[in-house]
């Protein structure tokens, strides 16, 4: 662990504080939406969670690239952890999206929300990542195979986005009008705080999980060294 990185307990406290600030901002600072009422507040969680998921997948792909360029177990662990976090936040995106759909339009699922459909596809893709990863035996082969698949994921994101757009334009015409309310200044403030808080939360979870995995790896190495 390098010394320049902020320590984990500090980060955890910081992100808790940020999250509290975000909750305050969302419920007390931002005005209530005229049309949707209280349920619109979910937007403040849903969109940052989605953006965080994208960021995690992007980080996972970047680390995957490092895996292929250099040889190092550490990049593989980082890539895997990032994708794991991305999948968790992806699942949360779907869940918050469903809640919002139910609150706004009365249905649990709608195919006309491009964002939601995209996350469904990505969620399936990244679940397959884990199926693939755990079918291969631990070692350099697994690292490379996982890395290549992670790169495919990041290429799939824009491609799927356009595919879903095309599908909605001609194959499934939009039934509901688009989400994304006009934000006032105070709403934007709440949104920004929420985004920062969720990002921080994701980062803390990433670091915690990574630390756990690294400890496991160290433990394994020690056990092997003792066995020699």
């Amino acid at each position, binding site marked *: 662990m390098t010394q320049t990185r902020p320590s984990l307990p500090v980060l955890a406290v910081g992100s808790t504080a940020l999250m509290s600030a975000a909750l305050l901002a969302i419920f007390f600072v931002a005005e209530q939406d005229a049309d949707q009422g209280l349920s619109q507040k979910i937007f403040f969680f849903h969109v940052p969670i989605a953006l965080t998921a994208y960021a995690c997948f992007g980080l996972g792909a970047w680390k995957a690239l490092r895996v*292929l360029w250099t040889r190092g177990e550490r990049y593989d662990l980082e890539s895997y952890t990032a994708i794991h976090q991305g999948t968790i936040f992806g699942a949360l995106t779907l869940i918050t999206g469903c809640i919002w759909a139910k609150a706004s339009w009365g249905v649990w699922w709608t195919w006309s929300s491009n964002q939601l459909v995209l996350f469904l596809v990505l969620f399936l893709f990244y679940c397959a990542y884990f199926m693939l990863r755990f*079918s*291969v035996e631990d070692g350099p082969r697994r690292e*490379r195979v996982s890395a290549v*698949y992670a790169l495919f994921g990041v290429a799939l994101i824009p491609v799927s986005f356009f595919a879903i757009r095309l599908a909605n334009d001609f194959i499934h015409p939009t039934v509901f009008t688009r989400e994304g309310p006009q934000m006032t200044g105070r709403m934007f403030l709440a949104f920004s705080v929420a985004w920062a808080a969720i990002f921080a939360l994701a980062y803390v979870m990433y670091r915690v999980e990574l630390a756990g995995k690294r400890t496991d790896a160290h433990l394994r190495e020690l056990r092997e060294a003792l066995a020699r």
Partner: protein
Amino acid sequence: MNDYLGDVAALARKDLALELRARDTLPAMVLFVLSTLVVFHFALPRDAGDEAAYGLLWVAIVFTALLGLSRAWVPESRDGAIDALVLATRDRSAIWVAKTLAALAFLAVAELVALPAFALLFAPLDAAAVAGAALASIGLCVVGSLAAALASAGRGREVVLPLLVLPLSIPLVVGGVGASISPQAGDYLLFLGVYDAVFAILSWASFEYVITE
């Protein structure tokens, strides 16, 4: 460059020769796609439009491709020939190109049967639909042969392969169906072309890392 193409040609010829001798994959694919189309007739409600049928055609094609792809790397893994290939080829991506071409050849033969059968049993297919079929098939084989190599790295490859291919095939299905039913078929064909280019480059570049340790 000539050497590279020569390697691809030798490998592709080998894959075609193996299938011609064994004759197990291609007849299975043809029969599978025909059977699936017939099942779909019974799966569609009476007043379903043509458009629903096009969607089902694409489901049939994707699963037929999966059938072919699952057998793609079997000859190599049987007696360890993959090790010999990995040692012998100068640029391992040639192996991927050859596998993709062979898979495409088999899928094309299956579609040569399936598309006319579809037009006969369900709804007509215009030039745009056929072009869409061609482009989407290329995309399927491009990602499919790489996914098959990924799946062969581990256990349970027959189960893992469809899981890897299906999410990746969604844009292709959109493209194929759109080319069949949309007045703006050109947009969908362009989209398919972009998909093919992007994933071909990605697969071609990453194959070396997948097949070696």
